[in-house]
């Protein structure tokens, strides 16, 4: 799981949640919008239904009058088909509404309309037959039939109301006024019908007294007042129109009716009063139609307003959704471009650093401050890594140079060591003396050196030099000392003073140079003796033929310490079988791993213990003893041993 995938999942969840919320909100608002649109349609249907109901009320009155007016020829005729048309229209409109229950009600209206239509034709046929009895009978039946249809329509209307519900007080008010209209119209038509029937003293029933007719007037007045007060509670805007009707009934229609009754009582001007009353009834019918139209306009305007506000809400939500999605997409873009992509780039840069790829990646600038900080830090890491790499390279180069210089120095040293070794003679016989040697420099170049050579007939010279320290400086001084000592010995006359020769060597030794110790020997084989000068060098060991050991000399100043130093010459016997051991201090001053010195005493003891060995055997043992003591190649000082053996 990486950052990109995690962010993708999180943002997807967020986006889907947003879509779900928007969908639910949107569908609710859309339903509201659809509902508002339906309300308008339903309202139109209801208005048609209302028109049909009012029409049926009027029709019923007309039909009743036809019955009473048979013979008088004043019947106006009923138009049931108009009401049927209104019902059909209401039915058609409701069919388009999505609600199943409403569609059922629409079908019921349709059935009623069809039945009414059929009946209207039958009715018309009977009326047009001209048979007075049939017409009377039909009039009676039709009145009931129409009343029944009207009642059914009112039930359906109630059912529609139950289905749609009263959304608010305005719609409630509208409904209330429509009910008012229906009631008032019903009362009015009934009043007119019954009054006319009573006046005709017809076959409809027992003649009514004027008192009873007036009671009906009070009933009409009462129902009107009750509704008027209720309407006022709901919708004030329509109150004026309602009041007009109410006032008209109270101030014009009912007085006209009273005048008619009085005229009948008096038996005067009955026809004129009847005409006034009928005219007032027609006027009331027009006022009712007017109220119906106003209420319809009012409800349509109100529902249109509702629809507009629902549409606005829908538009707002769509705008909000589009805006929200745009912001979401923009966020996605920003997160990808300014966070995820730079992080990916940094990841690659870090991998580059890890793998030692130090080429810079594109010098992109980043928008977010913390990303910039990290990128800067990475840049610093990279620069540091480059610097470190360069340093390492330089160090390696330097190391290589040092190694080269060291190799070159080593090779110089080796070359110098070869020269130095070439100065030292190989073991061998000079005159009647056999020289055996052991030489082990601590470094390539040694501070120790030795030499032996024939001086003249019977005379052989031997020298051994030890320059303090070892290595190149000691090696160079050693060469100089070797040459000086050799010249001193070579220039010595047969009876010359060896001590004087060494003194001269010392006097002319450059005081700036390191001092050295020296043993210089001159053997005289013809005399079987030797002479020796010791200058700070360990005392040589004289091993006589019988194995007895003696140290020669007890010291002397080294060369180069005091310019006017004096030296003494020591004369010693050196006959056939005698051996002289000349050695530098290195042979007994080497330490073992416990830093313990081998010591001079131990070395002398070693020589005494091995007095009977051959020189070759002895030298082998010296090497073994040294290696055992210091370890092979671990000498801290040069070791040189020259054994001179008279044969």
């Amino acid at each position, binding site marked *: 799981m990486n950052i990109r995938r995690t962010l993708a999942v999180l943002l997807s969840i967020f986006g889907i949640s947003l879509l779900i919320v928007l969908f639910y909100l949107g569908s609710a608002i859309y339903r509201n919008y659809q509902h508002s649109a339906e309300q308008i349609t339903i309202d139109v249907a209801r208005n048609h239904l209302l028109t049909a109901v009012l029409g049926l009320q009027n029709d019923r009155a007309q039909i009743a009058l036809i019955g009473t007016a048979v013979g008088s020829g004043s019947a106006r005729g009923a138009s049931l088909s108009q009401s049927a048309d209104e019902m059909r229209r209401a039915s058609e409109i409701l069919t388009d509404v999505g609600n199943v229950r409403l569609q059922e009600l629409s079908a019921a209206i349709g059935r009623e309309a069809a039945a009414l239509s059929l009946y209207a034709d039958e009715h018309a046929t009977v009326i047009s037959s001209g048979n007075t009895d049939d017409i009377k009978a039909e009039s009676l039946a039709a009145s009931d039939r129409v009343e029944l249809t009207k009642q059914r329509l009112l039930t359906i209307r109630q059912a529609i109301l139950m289905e749609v519900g009263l959304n608010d007080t305005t719609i409630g008010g509208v409904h209330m006024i429509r009910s008012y209209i229906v009631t008032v119209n019903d009362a009015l038509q009934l009043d007119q019908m019954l009054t006319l029937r009573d006046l005709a003293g017809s076959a409809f029933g027992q003649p009514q007294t004027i008192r009873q007719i007036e009671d009906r007037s009070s009933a009409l007045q009462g129902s009107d007042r009750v509704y008027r007060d209720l309407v006022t509670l709901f919708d004030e805007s329509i109150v004026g129109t309602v009041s007009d009707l109410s006032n008209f009934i109270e101030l014009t229609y009912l007085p006209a009716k009273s005048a008619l009754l009085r005229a009948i009582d008096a038996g005067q001007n009955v026809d004129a009063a009847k005409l006034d009353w009928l005219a007032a009834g027609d006027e009331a019918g027009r006022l009712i139609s007017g109220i119906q139209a106003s209420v319809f306009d009012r409800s349509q305007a109100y529902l249109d307003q509702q629809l507009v506000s629902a549409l606005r809400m829908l538009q707002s939500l769509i705008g909000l959704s589009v805006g929200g999605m745009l912001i979401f997409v923009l966020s996605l873009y920003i997160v990808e471009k300014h966070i995820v992509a730079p992080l990916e780039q940094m990841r690659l840069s870090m991998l580059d650093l890890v793998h030692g790829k130090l080429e810079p990646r594109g010098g992109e600038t980043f928008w977010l401050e913390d990303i910039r900080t990290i990128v800067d830090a990475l840049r610093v890491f990279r620069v540091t890594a480059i610097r470190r790499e360069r340093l390492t390279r330089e160090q390696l180069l330097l190391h290589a140079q040092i190694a080269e210089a060291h190799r070159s120095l080593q090779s110089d040293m080796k070359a110098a060591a070869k020269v130095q070794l070439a100065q030292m003679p190989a073991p061998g016989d000079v005159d009647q003396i056999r020289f055996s040697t052991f030489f082990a420099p601590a470094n390539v170049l040694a501070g120790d050196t030795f030499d032996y050579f024939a001086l003249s007939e019977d005379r052989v010279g031997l020298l051994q030099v030890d320059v303090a*320290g*070892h290595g190149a400086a000691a090696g160079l001084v050693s060469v100089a000392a070797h040459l000086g000592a050799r010249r001193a010995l070579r220039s010595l006359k047969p009876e010359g003073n060896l001590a004087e020769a060494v003194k001269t060597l010392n006097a002319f030794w450059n005081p700036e140079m390191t001092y050295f110790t020296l043993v210089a020997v001159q053997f005289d084989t013809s005399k079987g003796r030797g002479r020796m000068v010791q200058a*700070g*060098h360990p005392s040589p060991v004289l091993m006589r033929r019988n194995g007895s050991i003696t140290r020669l000399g007890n010291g002397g100043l080294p060369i180069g*310490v005091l310019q006017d130093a004096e030296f003494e010459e020591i004369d010693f016997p050196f006959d056939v079988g005698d051996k002289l051991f000349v050695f530098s201090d290195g042979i007994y001053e080497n330490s073992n791993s416990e830093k313990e*010195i081998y010591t001079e005493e131990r070395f002398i003891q070693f020589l005494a213990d091995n007095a009977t060995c051959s020189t070759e055997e002895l030298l082998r043992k010296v090497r073994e003893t040294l290696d055992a003591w210091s370890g092979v190649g671990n000498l801290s000082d040069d070791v040189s041993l020259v054994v001179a053996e008279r044969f």
Partner: protein
Amino acid sequence: MQFSEDHQGTVLVLEIGESRLEASNAPELRELLIGRIENGNHQIVLDLKLVTFMDSSALGALIGAIKKMGPLGTLALVGATGPVLQLLKLTRMDKVFPLFPSASAALNKLEG
């Protein structure tokens, strides 16, 4: 190199704290002595009682010091025993450097 120093009047007493004076620490010994001499100390008592071994390189340092001092200076050695004394005797340095058994003896002699 371990050492301690103590000024007694015009005399500087240097006590060497090493048991061995050899090629490895001879250059330090040389620097120490040459440094003190250059600072004007021409009467130096070098206490070697803790030193059990001295080689020719260290001896070279002492010789270098006495050469640096010149004829008016004194480098007295104290407590030289065993191999150290042997080396001094072998090279006759017991004739070049005054030897004393103890620092106080050396001081008495030098100050007296």
